[in-house]
């Protein structure tokens, strides 16, 4: 424990949520070192603003808000990736229709299971990484932390309606990215489906 009572109090609150914070940071940055860096920066930043934290409120949401803020500011200033939002979200029900086209509905399989069998953790992480930052943030908080619109709205400092529409678009963009990556990697060609049947 640190010497100063303020630091000790901060650490007591931070320790139980550090795993969550790192998990979110890893999905946002896509890299272990960058994630560690981001959590450390966020911790410093949050500690500097610790007076503004109201003890009876949710520390995890408060800390994630700082962390997401740090991440978005870093991403914007470094402009490592173009932040243009694609004009084309991808077709509605893209994966559902793909599963139907591949005949997965008629084979007595669970079509989502059959499709997911082709998407390993690496592919899903890569697809999430393809999303523009604003969309990746809401998708990460929803998928990883299972947060509500209201909680996400608080963290990203947006109205609930914005979170809702962003999450809906993020879902479509994620399906599109998954499908494109899976095709690039040759995971969803017709032949694979056939061989997948006997697995």
């Amino acid at each position, binding site marked *: 424990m640190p010497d100063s009572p303020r630091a000790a109090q901060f*650490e007591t609150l931070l320790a139980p949520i550090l795993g969550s914070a790192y998990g979110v940071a890893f999905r946002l940055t896509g890299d272990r070192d960058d994630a560690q860096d981001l*959590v*450390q*920066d966020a911790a410093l930043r949050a*500690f500097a603003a610790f007076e503004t934290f109201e003890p009876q409120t949710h520390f995890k949401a408060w800390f994630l808000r*700082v962390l997401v803020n740090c991440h978005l*500011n870093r991403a914007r*200033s470094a402009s490592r990736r173009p932040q243009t939002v694609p004009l084309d979200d991808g077709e509605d029900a893209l994966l559902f229709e793909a599963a139907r086209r591949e005949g997965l509905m008629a084979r007595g399989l669970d079509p989502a299971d059959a499709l997911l069998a082709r998407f390993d*953790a690496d592919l899903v992480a890569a697809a999430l990484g393809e999303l523009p930052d604003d969309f990746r943030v809401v998708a990460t908080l929803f998928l990883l932390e299972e947060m509500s619109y209201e909680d996400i709205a608080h963290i990203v400092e947006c109205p609930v309606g914005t979170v809702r529409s962003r999450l809906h678009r993020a879902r479509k963009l994620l399906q599109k990215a998954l499908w494109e990556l899976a095709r690039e990697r040759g995971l969803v060609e017709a032949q694979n489906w056939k061989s997948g049947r006997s697995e």
Partner: protein
Amino acid sequence: MHQFAQADFGVCGEFIRCLFRVARNFFTRGVLRGQKNEEFVMLLGILSCKETIARLDDYLDRELSPQEVRLVARHLKICHQCAKRFAFETELVEGLRRRLHRIEAPADLLEKIRTSLEAAETGAASHGNSNPQCGVLKDNQGSL
């Protein structure tokens, strides 16, 4: 009429609901033309496929009211197509969650943070706290 549609009649109830649906389509196309449609939907307690699919995202996000969930569930019971779509999308979200399992934080991360906080505490007076990459944190009031 309201209670009639809400009650559970089993197979007979499904038939009556179908009749309501036909009547409703007739009214919404011919009379209401979309206006007051929502009110009418609530009154009859039956959603069309389009209205059900329009609720899919909010359903997956667990943001529908209990009443809306009941309306959706009622439609899914009688509509195989929509039921397939909802089952697919629900399973997809669950599958993606399983694949995005949490990565363990490095064991020494807390220790590293402690060290940097201590450095910040001792250095704050002379240098001021600044981290240019993080920018200004607006309004830190946590309200959850």
